[in-house]
């Protein structure tokens, strides 16, 4: 029987020092903080984090990893409003790769879809184009952007089943479905584990083929 349900500790155990870790979420919605906080406890360090932003609340999630000195580099579109990131960045203790939000989403999707590189108009004629290859299509200039892979994706979904099928709630999809596609090992925290078939075939947003492990958030962690 296929069973992707893991305990929290088992799910994260093999995340190694030096790993590249995607972390889903946009604003407070869809952030896998239950997993990220457990990764802080697990201890892996020298991480490269790929996420839309660098968090804000120092008590939880990405800022917690940052304050513990676990993150060597962050790849994101909007690192503002994160005191934990600011403190490190100001003194040169963290690397930053800024990527426009749409390019970030598309680079992640490309990694999941077997596309090693693609062209985009975003960033042409700006400092984002520095050092990037360009090419003309139909008389217009475009930048070459490369796929962005990860060793691990930590994502949040609403419901999950033992095959790893996931559904989301509200604006909780955001980066989660594309990150699920782009990592060697995708680990999802879910609010409810349901029986196979309870997520109808046309309601599955992330099919289990993109998910390796699911962890149920216990009631006491949902406060």
């Amino acid at each position: 029987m296929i069973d992707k349900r893991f305990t929290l500790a088992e799910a994260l155990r093999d995340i190694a020092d030096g790993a590249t870790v995607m972390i889903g979420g946009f604003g407070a919605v869809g952030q896998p903080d239950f997993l990220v906080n457990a990764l802080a406890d697990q201890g892996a360090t020298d991480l490269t984090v790929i996420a839309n932003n660098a968090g804000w609340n120092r008590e939880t999630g990405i800022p917690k990893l940052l304050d513990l000195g676990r993150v060597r580099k962050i790849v994101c579109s909007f690192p503002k409003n994160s005191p934990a990131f600011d403190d490190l960045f100001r003194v040169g203790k963290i690397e930053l790769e800024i990527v426009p939000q749409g390019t970030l989403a598309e680079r992640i999707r490309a990694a999941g879809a077997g596309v090693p590189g693609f062209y985009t108009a975003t960033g042409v004629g700006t400092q984002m184009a520095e050092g990037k290859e360009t090419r003309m299509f139909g008389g217009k200039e475009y930048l070459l952007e490369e796929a962005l892979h990860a060793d691990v994706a930590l994502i949040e979904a609403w419901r999950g089943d033992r095959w790893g099928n996931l559904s989301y709630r509200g604006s909780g999809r955001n980066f989660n479905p594309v990150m699920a596609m782009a990592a060697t090992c995708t680990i999802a925290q879910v609010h409810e584990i349901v029986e196979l078939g309870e997520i109808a075939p046309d309601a599955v947003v992330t099919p289990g083929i993109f998910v390796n492990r699911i962890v149920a958030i216990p009631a006491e962690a949902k406060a």
Partner: protein
Amino acid sequence: MIPAGVTPLDRPQMAARLARDIPEGWFVNLGVGVPTQVADHIPADREVIIHSENGILGMGPAPAPDAVDPWLVNAGKKAVTLLKGAALFHHADSFAMIRGGHIDLCVLGAFEVAANGDLANWTTSSNDKTPAVGGAMDLAVGAKRIWILMEHVTRDGKPRLVEHCSYPLTAPGAVTRVYTNLAVLDVTPSGFAVVEMVPGLTLDALQALTAAPLVMASS
């Protein structure tokens, strides 16, 4: 200096002025800040579909404080509601809408707009301590139209409409129209063309607050 006797629009008035020009049926993305207020001024009988880059089409007004769904926020991370007919999707699909030219209009704020439509709105320094671009560059190149909503001059009285942007660009040649607290201006091959001014303002007075040549729009 804004001449005596001329009352600039306040922010709700600026948002309302812009909202008046959005026709029914457009798909519109509203930037964080004052642009977000545009949604509050679209007439109730005119259907305009608001897009949020974090995966929403068909956003409705802000919820009552006791009706907040914590699972539903807009690009500014504020609680929102959904209209009947709304759709939810992931970030790659959302930016496919933006970058694929499907959004009819994006309303953004700006630090500077140049006479050729160059837009600078993401950082005021090429040595920004924590540069953060978000979706601005994607929106600026992807939406069918970029309308800028901003004060005509900075707090220090420096013009924001300029010959050439001094700040790092968000996108070259992106802006088609600018709504300020003093005027509505089109970006044209011959530079900024004044479509409308607040009552009492003269072209000379507006020109004095603008660092690029103005022409009157032929109407």
